[in-house]
């Protein structure tokens, strides 16, 4: 056990000497895909609640497809599928983009988390109390101001608990990245297993690392919830 750790601790945490690997890679994938997906989800969530059929319907279809298929299949479609298309072959930049496992992983993960987050945000926007919107309209807020100052801040607070779940699920999904040659924690764990044939040591180490990140994320989100949902705690404690 100690020998394994001595040999691999560097690769498990940040680098194998040439490339970024292990924990650093996992976190990089997580941060990039969650922030990209979250940004698009914000726009799509507003569109999802639009009155126009042709804005609402395509967004629903997008989320339905991406939530109805496994992430692994989406990753396979993007990584093994797209570079065989002829128009991707003809463009050098597109070709280079889809040849890289890391790019494909981040694209697939961002699209996937975008679909789930869109539904979370859209549900939160729908649950913003009507009275607050009426009050804002009565005070003469225009549409832009209404979203900026009333709806989005309130929806963010409503969505926070569900969104924290989604981020932790996304962390767990990043373990899939090793299937497309990305050197994340899981890939190093599999290397250790291939080298030593000790499944409990190899995957146990990976499990401990993921557990640690999960706990840090849970702790962070709990602090955020404490800060942003303070007003709800006060009212809740009075009722209880």
């Amino acid at each position: 056990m100690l020998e394994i750790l001595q040999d691999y601790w560097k690769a498990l945490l940040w680098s194998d000497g040439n490339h970024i690997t292990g924990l650093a890679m996992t976190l990089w994938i997580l941060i990039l895909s969650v922030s990209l997906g979250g940004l698009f989800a914000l726009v799509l969530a507003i569109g999802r609640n639009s009155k126009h059929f042709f804005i609402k319907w395509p967004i629903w279809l997008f989320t339905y497809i991406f939530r109805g298929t496994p992430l692994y299949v989406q990753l396979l479609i993007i990584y093994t599928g797209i570079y065989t298309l002829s128009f991707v072959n003809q463009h050098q930049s597109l070709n280079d983009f889809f040849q890289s496992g890391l790019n494909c992983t981040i694209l697939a993960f961002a699209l996937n988390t975008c679909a789930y987050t869109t539904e979370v945000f859209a549900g939160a926007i729908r649950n913003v109390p009507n009275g607050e919107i009426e009050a804002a309209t009565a005070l003469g807020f225009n549409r832009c101001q209404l979203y900026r100052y009333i709806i989005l801040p309130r929806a963010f607070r409503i969505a926070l608990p569900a969104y924290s779940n989604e981020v932790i699920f996304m962390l767990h999904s990043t373990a899939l990245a090793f299937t497309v040659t990305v050197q994340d924690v899981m890939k190093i764990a599999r290397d250790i297993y291939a080298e030593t044939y000790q499944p409990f040591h190899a995957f146990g180490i990976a499990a401990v690392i993921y557990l640690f990140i999960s706990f840090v994320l849970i702790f962070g989100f709990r602090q955020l919830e404490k800060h942003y949902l303070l007003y709800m705690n006060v009212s809740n404690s009075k009722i209880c």
Partner: protein
Amino acid sequence: MQGYRSLILQGALITIELAIFSLILAIIIGVICALGKLSKRSALRLACQAYTSLIRGVPDLVLMMLIFFGLQFLLNNITDFFDIDMLEIDPFVAGIITLGFIYGAYFTETFRGAFQAVPKTLIDAATALGMNKCHTFIYVRFPLMMRFALPGIANNWLVILKATALVSLLGLFDLVKATKTAGEATYQPLFFALIAGAFYLFFTSISNIILWWLEKHYSIGITKAKL
């Protein structure tokens, strides 16, 4: 496409079987651990608490590899110790055990919440009518709990269904593995990967319809608040 149709259909069948069997196992584990978490014995409570927190904090893929390769490793050690021939674990059975074990933790949380949602007065009423603990559980607590647990079960079922895609990484010949093989053999990976996606979309759509119907059926006695 023609030559691979039976292969892909076989893979789809394995995927469905795997999902259903692991759902059953996960529900059984979930109910037992939920009762354990609500029991008065603190050791039992602690053990179930550790099980759910640890499993839910680790990616399912890592656990799958840990359990799958770990079981084989343990079995090899045991057969070595008793000097008998090596036993190979059937990947299908191992897949069911690992998926059931992992999602049992998620079901535990669902059932625990549902058991707690059953009004205590109903259990008191059952006791007052002379039912013993066993009868109360079978006729009162369990059926009422199911009504509260149904949305959670529906959610978990969809997650299990999608998680079965991962078992192809353990070497099981499921839908994903079948389409991947076909895609590599015919140099049309995109087409066959899309077929895999279409199959999953079909399964989830069917499940959504059935779950919608089930929810309507089980909420007959409840009127929703109209705003």
